[in-house]
């Protein structure tokens, strides 16, 4: 317990805040602590979590990516055209295409950053505009509805009829989210490559002197983020059953805020998968709670902004120290 608090100070605090929030909302609203509400929270936020773990890897390596949400839209369009061209495909091919196109877009970012030594925020703001501009130009802003049926038919993994007759269900994106979280966890915690990513983000000069290949680090970080962006795009279209060119613009900041809330540091070297998940959930549950309490949706952004400010300004408080002091007294 103490070891967890010490290794994951931000995550512990977040978890505590989340539990308090949930307890408060359960008392305030009878609809909050229900199976239906929780499964729909998971269903609605799976895509954000997939994107968040991708972005996490970039933040750990000391970079930032503004372009991934737009890249996800580009991947959706490319996938629709590519799948139609090969006659429809199936889930396996869909994941291959989405992951592959996303990876390629991520590698473009990595190449520009490493080759021309431009900082990542500048590069990804540029590619954000380039990707979005190209997409709007070639799609002329048209929506696509001709998704293959395997893609747009809702895949329900588990369902359950509650006592009052409503259905609680978990859909495919939740499973994909779990797999993406596990894969990212293995990459960053359990492989040497992942530890090199942390080291590179923490102290680039120290990493260079230790002999870590810098270009490869950038490629892995941005490639992973791109791949997650693509897979998230595939899942998003599965939920909405259509592809809209400008549907995902703006989501990048929402996800970035959640990841930073989860303890990732913009300077690099810190962050965890658990933190990402909790960060996304905190934002989602806050909005969900405000919704159930009948607060105007126009107030959501304001409240989320305040939460992020509070989280960042209290991030130097270390619960492990309170715990250690309490133990000694």
């Amino acid at each position: 317990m103490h070891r967890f608090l010490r290794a994951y100070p931000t995550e512990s605090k977040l978890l505590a805040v989340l539990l308090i929030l949930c307890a408060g909302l359960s008392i305030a609203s009878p609809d909050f602590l229900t199976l239906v509400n929780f499964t729909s929270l998971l269903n609605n936020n799976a895509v954000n979590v997939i994107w968040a773990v991708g972005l996490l890897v970039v933040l750990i390596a000391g970079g930032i990516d503004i372009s991934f949400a737009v890249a996800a839209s580009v991947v959706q369009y490319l996938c629709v055209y590519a799948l139609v061209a090969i006659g429809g495909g199936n889930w396996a091919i869909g994941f291959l295409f989405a992951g592959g196109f996303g990876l390629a877009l991520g590698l473009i970012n990595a190449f520009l950053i490493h080759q021309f030594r431009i900082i990542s925020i500048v590069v990804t703001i540029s590619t954000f505009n380039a990707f979005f501009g190209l997409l709007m130009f070639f799609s002329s802003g048209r929506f696509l509805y001709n998704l293959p049926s395997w893609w747009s038919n809702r895949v329900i993994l588990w369902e359950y009829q509650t006592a009052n007759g409503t259905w609680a269900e978990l859909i495919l994106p939740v499973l994909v989210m779990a797999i993406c979280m596990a894969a990212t966890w293995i990459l960053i915690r359990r492989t040497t490559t992942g530890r090199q990513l942390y080291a590179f983000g923490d102290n680039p000069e120290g990493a260079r002197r230790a002999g870590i290949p810098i270009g490869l680090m950038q490629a892995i970080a941005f490639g992973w983020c791109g791949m997650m962006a693509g897979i998230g795009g595939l899942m998003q279209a599965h939920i909405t059953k259509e592809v809209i060119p400008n549907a995902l613009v703006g989501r990048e900041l929402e996800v970035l805020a959640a990841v930073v809330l989860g303890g990732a540091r913009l300077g690099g070297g810190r962050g965890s998968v658990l933190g990402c998940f909790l960060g996304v959930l905190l934002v989602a549950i806050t909005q969900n709670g405000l919704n159930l309490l009948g607060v105007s949706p126009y107030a959501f952004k304001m409240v989320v902004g305040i939460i992020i400010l509070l989280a960042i300004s209290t991030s130097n408080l270390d619960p492990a120290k309170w715990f250690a002091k309490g133990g000694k007294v």
Partner: protein
Amino acid sequence: MPADAPPVDALRFSGIAKIFGGVKALDDVSFTVGAGEVHCLAGENGCGKSTLIKIVTGVYQPEPGARMQIFGQDYAQISPTQARKAGIAVIWQDLALFAEMTVAENIAFETMLGNRPRGVSYSRLRTAAASALARLDVDLDLDARLGDLPIAQRQIVAIARALVSDARLIFMDEPTASLTQSETDALLSVVRTLSARGVAVVFVSHRLAEVLEISSRVTVLRDGKLVGVYPTEGMTQSRLTELMTGSSFAQDVMARDPTGSDVLRVDDLSRAGEYEGVSFTLRGGEVLGLTGLIGAGRTELCHTLFGMTPADRGRISLNGRELNLSSNRDAVAEGIAYVSEDRLALGLIQPQSISDNTVLAVLRRITGGVGLLSGQKQEATVAHWMAELAVKIGKPADAVSTLSGGNQQRVVLAKWLATQPKVLLLDCPTVGVDVGARAGIFRIVRQLAEKGLAILLVSDEVPEVYMNADRVLHMAGGRIVAEWDPRRTGLSEMEAAVYA
């Protein structure tokens, strides 16, 4: 040295030369380190110590004609990888550790290198780290975040990391520069442990007492040339200082009696945890030296005198009038200027031009009729100070980062002199400046004093204040503990007191 000393020397280098842009940084130097020996490399800043370390570790290539042998094996050329494989490790002053990672991961970082991804075994990592720490006879919490450790323990982590990679020769560049006495003692005992286990250590330090205590032999460099290799037995600090500075440097001390009236007066100034009960007066035309170890409270005192941190207690008066400084803008307005310790990070805006840096603190004085900046006034101010301080520059529009260390320091001076100060606080003005440029800077300091400026010269190098100040204050543990007149108190006496 033990009786069964291995016959093969760790290092045998001779005929080492290195030329940078026509200047001989090293000239026919030889350097030999015995296996398991603690060897000290001594010399003033800019004497070629770092260049030599960089050649040994393969960062620089020496000029042709060098003979290099590591553990009995001849090398025509050394790359950093070869040096590492041969068992040479360097602990740089900035350590190159990872603040966000744990102690165990930092120590055993070597095991996580390689381009092919492998699984990380945290248990194996901890075992490797623990055994390295055990070899040093120290106990550290393996799960602590490195960034939470004090600097002394980070030193230990850096040394342990070198042991994990099986280093048999470790270079330590100024490892004690930021340590307290008890931390230094702990580090020295680790060095002895290493030596007893057959690991040779080359120690670079300014603190001569330490050098003589820990090492068996000392190689002295001066101006890129080898002065000699001496056994430390029977060597005294003053003799070593003489060897390092050379007779040519044994000029007369500059001290003389200032004629001006009291300008700055500090009474019983205290700030909790930083300095305590500090009182002194500084007269016009006087250069007052302030020395002491890092952490003695010198820089903190300067920050208060410059209005950046408030004192808890005490008074600062300027020309008999008590000052109430609530920010450094107040201090500048009162005529106090501060040349900061960390010139590169705090004193200059590196990518901006020489011209823009020079006028940064006086922007309000170079405005034209409607309050907009006047290019003409800026040009005139810059031209005046560049000539006054003899700064060697191409164009005023060049970036400051293109200048040498000595010339950058002059630009910082110009920036503050342009504010027409009455009191100049100089905090370690020669850090990273070579020997020749140092002399130039002190010439300027003396000229400024002769024009009536009151100067507080802060430095952790005792010879610097001894040579250049009229009076010297010794600060230790936040208090002024002694006042010396360089004409009456010798350098070795001052050094003995400061580095004790």
